[in-house]
């Protein structure tokens, strides 16, 4: 349960962006910068809640750069996403060096100032909220329309790009929250490249969950479970004395994603207009 928390936040973030029609492979970078922001703010203010806010703000800020490029400047979403990931990977040690004169890590946060279990509950409350919002609120429907039939939304008099802006910003804030729960909940500081592919794993969970909040969260739980099991299974013998290599469990989520996408295990279909630029005719 614990290790799946960052995944759930990030996957929900990815969901908003992708449902609105913006493919977000920059989740990884947004998580990383969120983890950094949260660690710094918590260390300075001694309050993990403010740190959580800092992580969200940092994620949203990076998302704003991303949105600026892909929505206003019509950059290719995948290329820009890759660049944003690199930017986060480069900026965090850079800022770390300026603030603390070390490249690898931010100073440790004392146990008393870290979260015990709040982010875990928060993540599931968020799943419920997202589900309600997407299903029952008009603005939640706008997001889906921006991703499925942007023309229809435009015809209804709602600015598609404004909806996408909002969705991407929210996506960044949630991914930042995911990163924050990594640095002030699951560990005690920010360290270099600490997300280690979790942004992409969140993306995988999103696909496995077919872009819907509850199944996505369950997929996160499954992947988190696989991650937790790795530590337990090290050294345990299977198949006549041979240890089961950890690597096989590590790659499991990715194999599942490919199989699901290929339609071997139930079809998973992305939003129709994902990846496209919307321009009014």
């Amino acid at each position, binding site marked *: 349960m614990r290790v799946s928390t960052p995944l759930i936040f990030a996957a929900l973030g990815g969901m908003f962006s992708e449902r609105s029609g913006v493919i977000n492979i920059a989740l990884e970078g947004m998580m990383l910068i969120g983890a950094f922001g949260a660690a710094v703010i918590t260390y300075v203010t001694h309050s993990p809640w403010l740190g959580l806010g800092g992580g969200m703000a940092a994620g949203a800020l990076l998302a704003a750069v991303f949105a600026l490029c892909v929505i206003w400047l019509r950059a290719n979403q995948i290329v820009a996403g*890759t660049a944003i990931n690199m930017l986060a990977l480069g900026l965090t040690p850079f800022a770390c060096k300026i603030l603390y004169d070390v490249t690898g890590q931010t100073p440790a946060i004392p146990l008393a100032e870290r979260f015990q279990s709040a982010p875990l509950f928060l993540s599931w409350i968020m799943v419920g909220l997202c589900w309600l919002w997407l299903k029952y609120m008009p603005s939640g429907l706008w997001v889906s329309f921006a991703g499925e039939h942007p023309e229809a939304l435009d015809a209804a008099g709602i600015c598609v790009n404004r909806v996408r802006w909002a969705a991407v910003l929210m996506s960044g804030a949630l991914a930042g929250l995911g990163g924050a729960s990594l640095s002030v909940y699951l560990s005690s500081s920010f360290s270099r490249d600490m997300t280690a592919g979790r942004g992409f794993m969140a993306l995988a969970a999103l696909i496995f969950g077919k872009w819907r909040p509850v199944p996505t969260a369950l997929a996160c739980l499954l992947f988190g479970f696989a991650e937790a099991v790795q530590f337990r299974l090290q050294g345990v013998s299977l198949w006549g004395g041979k240890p089961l290599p950890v690597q096989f469990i590590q790659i499991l989520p990715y194999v599942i994603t490919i199989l699901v996408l290929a339609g071997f295990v139930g079809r998973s279909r992305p939003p129709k207009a994902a990846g496209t630029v919307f321009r009014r005719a």
Partner: protein
Amino acid sequence: MIRKLLQPILSVALGLAVGLVVTWTAGEDPWRVFRIIADGAFGSGYDLGMTLFYATPLIFTGLSVAFAFKAGLFNIGAEGQLTLGALAAAAVGAIWPGLWSPLAPVVAALAAMLAGALWGAIPGWLRARRGSHEVINTIMLNFIAAGLASYVTLYLLKNPGSQNPETRPIGEGYWIHQFGVFGGAPVSLALPLALVAAFVVWVLLWRTVLGFEMRAVGQSESAARAAGIDAGKVRIIALSLAGGLAGLVGVGEVLGNAGRFRVGFSPEFGFIGIAVALLGRNHPLGVVAAALLFGALHRGAAALDLETERVTQELSLVLQALIILCVSAEGLWDWMRRRELNVEGSRG
């Protein structure tokens, strides 16, 4: 033609400018940072050699991405393809250490290419026959490749004489020639091989039927289908060849530098390859030029850790990211073009 060149050059200038302003906020003199990078990349024969050494894999991955792009495919999977390519080369070298030169390196290079091609064929097949998008598939395959490589390295081919996660060293006969003029920098035959590969890609794309079919599929799948081209088959071939190109990164790394497969040897060459292809406008010549630039940035930034108080070598990642964002921002260039037209219009 000039305008085609202008956009990448302006992007580089803009990206560098923004990046150096970032160093100014850190309290360093941007001009000094720029000079350190330039000096670190080209200051001596050794530095130049290191720049070329970093540029070589980027030529391969850049070509790989550009090649697939011509067929309308996004190859985010170069990282996984090069990982398995390098692993295959090292595995061949470790399993049959007795093989002699010049046969040995050729066999190892072919193995590297084959492994990369296989890893490229999977998303190609998935796209062509199951309709699932190659972007997600190649990202996932990158992680799977990393997992497989670390499994093979740690369980099957572990180097008993080392604490690091690496394979047993390759046989003597596998080493390829290193050029001595660069003061010991590991510039090997892989560099000319990369240039040859660039030329082959050019010939393949613009002088063969396959290349024509690829470009047709890339520009309009429906038109290509109407002309009787099997778009699925072309896609599979294109991604396989792209994978093969990325796999060749293993030649320089394993046969020309480390003599073994080291887990995590690549500082994201595959991802930087995307930037290289983009900046090089998906043309082989452009790819070579862009690879040299990014190689220089990577090498030049390495000196920043020592020579400045506060700027770290990660600045090169920031600079590269900014350059990619600039070059990909279509809207920015449209806007500039429109202004240009307006200025001309008001004059006339």
